[in-house]
């Protein structure tokens, strides 16, 4: 990392900013500020829901243990690997965009979206197994919360894939900021899952 003395002028080109060149405050966050406002509110909502799940389990441990035994913990771990790999590809796409390697950046976003769709395929297999065993959103408190939490998260995965595909098609003027913005949403989805997975699938 070169020690270059920075002036205000050098940080003016926001779109092409390397992470090292960002100003402080709100401008220190990659991508569009509106996305970060969404990320903060999503983290608040998921945080409250996760705490609610933990409290509900303490109040009815037998139902939660019996319900959790029907889940496939290995599929959950596989999906964690899928999401962190997809997030890695998206982050590499952002880095490529900053270097000016536009085709590489677009390909990385496409790859991140493709890997992300594997998450949905695994989730579909899990849901069909649970529903096939007659366990639905009405079965008990565990399955109500399981389907609500994982379903709400899976909808974010769907939206994240759409966003990755859209930002990968941005024009040259807006490409870097859009890549940063789309990737930021995608990393939030990833972050939520690394807590959801142990909470719902593993802790008992």
């Amino acid at each position, binding site marked *: 990392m070169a020690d270059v003395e920075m002036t205000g002028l050098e940080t003016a080109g926001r779109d092409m900013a390397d992470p090292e060149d960002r100003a402080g405050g709100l401008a220190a966050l990659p991508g569009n500020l509106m996305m970060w406002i969404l990320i903060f509110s999503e983290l608040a909502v998921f945080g409250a829901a996760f705490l609610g799940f933990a409290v509900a389990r303490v109040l009815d441990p037998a139902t939660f243990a019996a319900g959790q035994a029907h889940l496939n913990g290995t599929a959950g771990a596989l999906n964690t690997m899928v999401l962190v790999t997809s*997030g890695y590809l998206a982050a590499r796409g952002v880095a490529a965009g900053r270097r000016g390697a536009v085709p590489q950046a677009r390909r990385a976003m496409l790859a991140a979206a493709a890997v992300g769709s594997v998450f949905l395929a695994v989730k579909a297999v899990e849901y069909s197994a649970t529903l096939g065993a007659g366990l639905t959103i009405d079965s008990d408190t565990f399955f109500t919360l399981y389907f609500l939490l994982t379903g709400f998260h899976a909808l974010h995965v769907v939206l994240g894939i759409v966003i990755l595909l859209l930002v990968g098609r941005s024009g040259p003027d807006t490409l870097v900021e859009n890549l940063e913005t789309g990737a930021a949403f995608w990393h939030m989805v990833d972050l939520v899952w690394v807590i959801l997975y142990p909470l719902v699938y593993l802790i008992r």
Partner: protein
Amino acid sequence: MACLKKIDRLTLSWLVLMGLTTVTLLFARHGDAGRSVGIAGVALLLALAVTKGREILLHYLELDHAGPGWRLAMTGWLVLLCGAILLVTAAGALGWVGPR
């Protein structure tokens, strides 16, 4: 260590995330349905989640370049949430709170 120096920080993060997820696989099998992982097991699983979340925050979301305020706020959210989950779960396991 020499080979670790050749890979960039982002790739190292991805390897750490994959490695830590492999550790969670030890807890993934339900040999005896519903057998508790114990308070230590819960603490370990949540510590793994905090470590993974921190990698994502600092290196995927680039908060390592965003200054100490953002780092503290976001990792603080992660630690407080997982700490609260641990506290609630431990309170249940110790019988302080539970079904009436």
